[in-house]
C-alpha cells in the first residue's frame, strides 16, 4: 500500500500522456471549474495568443463581454484595436501592466497620460501604441480617449463572469519618474527612448504572483462572482534584454509566470489555470505546434488548444460549427482554419517590433 496506488490515471505520465494519441490526451486534468457557454460571459486580455480565445469563443457561440466597441460613426480601419479584446487595451504582456491598468480603471491611481506625437502630427498612447493605429488628432483627444478607455475597462467587471488572462512576458520597461511599465519599450514603435527615464525590468516570481493576487482581489471586490482563468502563452520571446540567450530568457520567463499562476490557483478558489503552454510546448508535441522559427505557434497548435478548451471547459465537441462547404474536404477545412489562425497570430503580435530584423521585413 502506498499513496500513489489509488490515484486516477491522468496523474501518471504513462496513462495521461504516453498511452493515448495526441488528440485523446486529457490535457486539462485537474480543472477546478467548467463554464456554461450560454450563461457565462467571458472577458479576455493578455498577450497576442489570448486573442484567439475571444475570437473562437464568439465563433462557437460564446458570449463575449465587449465594453469598448467601434462606434457606429467610426469607420473600421486597420489596427483600430476593436474586436480583439473586451476593451481596446491591445496586448497586455505583463502582470504589472494588467495591475496598473486595473488600478487606473478602478480609480486606485491617477490615469497615466503618456503620449507621443508622431511624424504625421498625430498622437499615440504609449500604453497601447499599436492598438489605436490611426492615433489621435490632438493631445487632448488622446487624453479624453484614455479616460473613456479606463471607464470601459472598469465596465468589463460589471458583467463578466469569467476573465481569461494569458500571461506573456516578465521582461518590461518602466518609467522610473512616473512609476509605470510600458507594453513595449519606448522608441521601438513610437516615442523616444530616454536612458535617464526608461529602465529595463524583469519581474520576478514574487512580483508576478503578487500582481496576480492584487488583480484578483481588486476585480473580485467589485464582482464576487467573477472567476479568473489564467493561461501562459506558449509563444517565445522575440528578444530579451537580459544578458543571456533568448531561449534561456523565454524558459525563465514562462517558468516564472507558470509558477505565479500555480501559486494563485492554489491560494484562490476563484482562480484556475488552463494549460495552453503545456499543450504546445510539452515534450508530447515534439515541437510540431511551433512554426519553423521555433517561436510562433502554428495554426494547428492554436486549433488544438482551442479544441481542448472547448471540450474540457465547455463540453463542446471539437469540430467547428457548420458543415463543410460543398467540395471542401474536412482536412482541407482544417488546413484553411490553421492558416487563418496562423495569419492572425502573425499580424497581431506586436512584440516583434523589438527585433529590428523582423521589423525590416
Amino acid at each position, binding site marked *: 500500500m502506498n499513496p500513489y496506488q489509488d490515484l486516477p490515471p491522468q496523474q501518471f505520465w504513462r496513462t495521461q500522456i504516453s498511452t493515448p494519441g495526441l488528440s485523446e490526451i486529457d490535457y486539462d486534468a485537474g480543472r477546478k471549474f467548467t463554464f456554461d457557454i450560454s450563461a457565462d460571459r467571458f472577458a479576455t486580455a493578455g498577450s497576442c495568443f489570448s486573442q484567439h480565445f475571444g475570437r473562437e469563443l464568439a465563433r462557437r457561440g460564446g458570449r463575449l463581454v465587449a465594453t469598448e466597441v467601434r*462606434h*457606429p*460613426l*467610426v*469607420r473600421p480601419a486597420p489596427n483600430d484595436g476593436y474586436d480583439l479584446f473586451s476593451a481596446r487595451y491591445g496586448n497586455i504582456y505583463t502582470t504589472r501592466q494588467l495591475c496598473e491598468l486595473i488600478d487606473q480603471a478602478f480609480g486606485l491611481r491617477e490615469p497615466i497620460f503618456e503620449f507621443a506625437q508622431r511624424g504625421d502630427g498625430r498622437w499615440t498612447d504609449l500604453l497601447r501604441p499599436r492598438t489605436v493605429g*490611426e492615433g*489621435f*488628432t*490632438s*493631445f*487632448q*483627444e488622446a487624453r*479624453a*480617449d484614455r*479616460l*473613456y478607455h*479606463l*471607464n*470601459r475597462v472598469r*465596465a468589463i467587471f460589471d458583467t463578466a463572469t469569467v476573465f481569461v488572462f494569458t500571461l506573456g512576458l516578465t521582461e518590461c520597461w518602466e518609467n522610473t519618474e512616473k512609476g509605470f511599465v510600458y507594453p513595449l519599450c519606448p522608441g521601438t514603435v513610437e516615442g523616444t527612448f530616454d536612458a535617464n527615464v526608461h529602465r529595463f525590468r524583469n519581474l520576478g516570481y514574487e512580483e508576478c504572483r503578487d500582481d496576480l493576487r492584487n488583480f484578483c482581489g481588486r476585480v473580485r471586490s467589485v464582482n464576487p462572482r467573477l472567476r479568473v482563468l489564467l493561461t501562459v502563452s506558449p509563444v517565445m520571446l522575440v528578444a530579451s534584454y537580459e544578458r543571456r540567450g533568448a531561449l534561456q530568457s523565454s524558459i525563465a520567463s514562462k517558468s516564472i509566470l507558470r509558477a505565479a499562476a500555480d501559486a494563485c490557483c492554489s491560494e484562490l478558489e476563484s482562480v484556475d489555470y488552463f494549460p495552453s503552454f503545456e499543450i504546445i510546448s510539452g515534450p508530447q508535441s515534439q515541437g510540431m505546434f511551433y512554426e519553423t522559427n521555433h517561436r510562433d505557434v502554428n495554426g494547428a497548435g492554436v486549433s488544438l488548444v482551442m479544441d481542448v478548451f472547448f471540450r474540457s471547459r465547455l463540453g463542446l465537441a471539437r469540430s467547428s460549427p457548420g458543415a463543410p462547404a460543398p467540395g471542401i474536404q474536412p482536412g482541407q477545412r482544417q488546413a484553411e482554419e490553421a492558416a487563418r489562425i496562423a495569419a492572425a497570430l502573425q499580424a497581431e503580435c506586436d512584440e516583434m517590433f523589438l527585433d529590428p530584423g523582423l521589423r525590416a521585413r
Partner: protein
Amino acid sequence: MGISDLRVGLIGHSHAVCLLDALGNWRDQAGLSTAAQDRRYSEAFRGWFDVDLGGNAFTLAVGRTSFRAPAELVTCLLTAKASGDLIQSRDIGGLKQVRATPLFARCVEQLRNIDIVVSALHGNEAANVSLIDNHPSYDFAPYDDNDALRLTPPPSQPIDRRHIARWVDSFAQPAILSVTALQQSLPSTRVVHVLPPPPLEDPSQVMRREVLETLLAHHGFVRPSLRLKWSLAYRARVQTALEAQGIQVMEVPHAALTAGGFLRKDLSEGLTHGNGHYGAMIWEALDRLVGSAQ
C-alpha cells in the same frame, strides 16, 4: 443701393420657406395653399409633401414690409415632393463627375437676367444624426483645451474629428455641389447661399415633429451641446467650401442666437427651421451684405 433695388431670385428647399413667409402671402401663387395639411407639420409647410412644383418658378410681388425687401422675387421652390435630385455625381475612371439634372437646369433657366440669386438649398442633411439620440453615447473629441463646448465625460465616447469630418462632408456635399453648380450655371449672377439656422436648445416643446416623430418618440433628442456641434460643423464645412470658390455665404444673424449659440425659440418653426421673423432678419442681413458690397 440695397436689396430692394435689385432683381432678386430665390432657389431653395425647406429653408427657403422662412424667407418667403417674411414677405407675405406667397402660397396662393405657389399653388400650395389649397393642399391638405399634414398634421406632422405646421401651417408653414402646408402642401410641402403633396405638391411638386416641377421646377417652375413663380414671381412674387412683394408688398409693404417693415424691412428692406426685394420688390419682386422670382422663386424656384423645391418641395419635399419635388421629383429627383438637383445634381448627379458618378465616378468615371476614378474621377468624380458632377452634372446638373434636368430639374436643376429648368430652375436655373428661370433665374437668368437676375442680379442676385439667394440660395437656401439643402441644409437639413444632418438632421437625423444631430437630432435623434439613437447612437451609443458619444461626443466630438476635443481639438484642444479651448473648445467652447465642453466634452461630455465617459461613458460618452470621444469620436475623432477625422470620423466626424467624414460624416459632415457627406452631409455638406449636396449643398456644396448644388450651390457650386448654380454659380457655374449663372456666372454673371451674384449667388449668396443662406446657411440653415442652428438648433433650438430645447426642442422638447415642439409638438409637430415632422418626419422624425416616430424615431424621436423612441429614442429621444440628442443633448443640446452635441446638436449644436453638428450644426456648427455642418455650417463651417459648407461655408468654407463655398467661400473658397468665391461664393458668398450668409451666416446666421447674431441677433437670432441665444447666449449659448442656439436659435431663439421665438424665431423657430418646427424642429429645424426658422419662421417668418427669422426670414425677415435674413433679408435685413442680405440687404446689409448687398449694401456693404457697393
